[in-house]
């Protein structure tokens, strides 16, 4: 029974992810896209729960849904007036994009299918957040530092780009 519920809710999550993604890419209104993205991201967060990682799921919601989506919204508001009608679609382009994406889908799907995924010989079952923290500050400390630098650069860059724009305006 719990399996059924788990399965059902899993399918729900999957549906949220996929539908959200479809909306994110296919809807003509940019705001719908953002909402679709948020939905999809939440779905992915749900998937993370199924993958034994509530911590990452939480972070996903916090960072992605909380931060990135909001940033995108701001950008939308800064740039394009929403009331302008979207230009008509170019069917050739849509077909081309679908073809490209489809080809990649075939490629990656085949790859996933043909590969024999073998689990590691020894597996530790330690899902605690403490370990993550430990790893983060030991094995992955370089990346940790790098990420901080990266974020700094991104921040500065955004400011410079924006300021430059304002200055010239």
């Amino acid at each position, binding site marked *: 029974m719990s399996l059924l519920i788990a399965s059902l809710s899993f399918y729900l999550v999957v549906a949220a992810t996929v539908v959200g993604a479809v909306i994110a890419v296919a809807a003509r209104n940019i705001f719908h896209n953002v909402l679709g993205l948020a939905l999809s991201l939440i779905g992915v967060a749900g998937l993370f729960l199924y993958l034994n990682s509530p911590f990452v799921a939480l972070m996903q919601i916090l960072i992605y849904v909380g931060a990135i989506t909001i940033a995108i919204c701001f950008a939308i508001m800064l740039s394009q007036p929403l009331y302008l009608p979207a230009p008509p679609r170019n069917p050739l382009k849509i077909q081309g994009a679908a073809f490209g994406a489809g080809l990649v889908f075939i490629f*990656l799907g085949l*790859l996933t299918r*043909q*590969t*024999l*995924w073998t*689990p*590691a010989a020894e597996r530790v079952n330690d899902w605690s957040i403490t370990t993550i923290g430990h790893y983060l500050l*030991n*094995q*992955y*400390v*370089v*990346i940790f530092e*790098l*990420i901080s*630098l*990266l974020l700094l*650069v*991104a921040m*500065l*860059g955004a400011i*410079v*780009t924006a300021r*430059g724009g304002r*200055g010239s305006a």
Partner: protein
Amino acid sequence: MSVLQFGVELYYLVMALVLFFLTLRREPQAAQDHRIAFTLSTVGVVVALLCLTQQGELFFRSYRVDLFSQIFKLALALGLFLVLAISRNLPSIEERNHAEFYLFLTTCTVGMMMLVSAVELLTIYVALELSSYSLYILVPLRRGDDIDVEAGVKYLFFGAVSSCFMLFGLSYIFGATHSTYLSDIMARMPELVASPIGVVGLILAMAGFFFKLSIFPFHFWAPDVYQGGAHQVVTFIATASKAAAVALLIRLAVLGAQYGYHFTQILVFLSIISMTLGNLVAIIQKDFKRMLAYSSIAHAGYVLIGILTLQETGLASSIYYALAYLVMNFTVFMVLTQVAQDGRDLKIAELAGLYHRSPLLSMSLILGIFALAGVPPSIGFTGKLFLFTSAMNQGYFWLVLIGAVNGTLSLYFYLRVVYAAYFVDAKLPPIYLSPPMRALNYALCATILYFGVAPNSIMELARAAVRAVL
């Protein structure tokens, strides 16, 4: 772990910090900014030189300092130094952004330095992104037309999509080998011979570096960015970042050594298409930088020749060629920046009369161009021949044949540059070169010639470096 092992990176981090403080100043002081940045980068070269022989593994094996990485770090330090050397006059970037310009160049350098030392997939990815983002920001910094932002957008999205592919490939590698450490992956690779995941994962993982090196089909950004970016930024993209990409391609490609031809055939394919396409399209270009972009695509194809041999001399030749490419391409760009002192884009035809305007610059140009074209006794010729030799040793006959014929093709447009600079007269005022600039010119010319004639020392160094990777 000694400080020295991490010394170069540390130094450049500090340098970034100093520059960061410079950006906080209320009033921009361009000349002073440049002086500071330039001095720091000069010291940086010395530091890189001092740390050349450092060895060791840091940060829980995720970071390896060996001859291989140190050589590239030296090259990167040199690249930064050279770019800063021609940045005294920086007309294409707003004065108040000069400090940021230096800062992002430095962060980019730091990113690439960590890139060449990283032996862990995630480190590689993040370091790559660090260097890329700095460049994404630098490209639209240019003052003036709309094309800079357009170029920036294109650069960014190409980069983003490529890095998505790369990340996806990394995830597969992680899935198949259960590790993000290159040494572990290397150890696991033989088990994966039966499964397609090894080759495909590697190819996908290399996508990010194909992008950096502008190898077909990841080359589309290059012409636009070269044309749209500020000269100095493009110079950096065209020299230092290429060298880092080569380093990482080497690191990743050796993982595929197990797969033999199954793996290398793809590289052969990409290499051939890259050189042919680059050279053919370069023929019809009128904009100097755009032509150089296509030539860089072709050169990426050449470098790949050495990498795909997956064996000591071949890889060493690639390193040699990457270093050579840094020098010779920089020489050409330096001439470009000096000729276009107001920072505008230059048509090839606008080089006319350079011989009369500044014989020294024209000499540097001719040497640089000839080196790019692979004309002896320049460094480019020697490097190219090394590449071909090692490829032939592995039996890539057709590849060498096509590469050699491509050399002829490329000569066509290179000679057009020489022709414009040397043989067309234009009544334009002479170009003044400051004494340090003259010294730089002479040094570059001497380097191009000297290492073309006596490549042994560099080659031996490169071989020693490769041994550290294999």
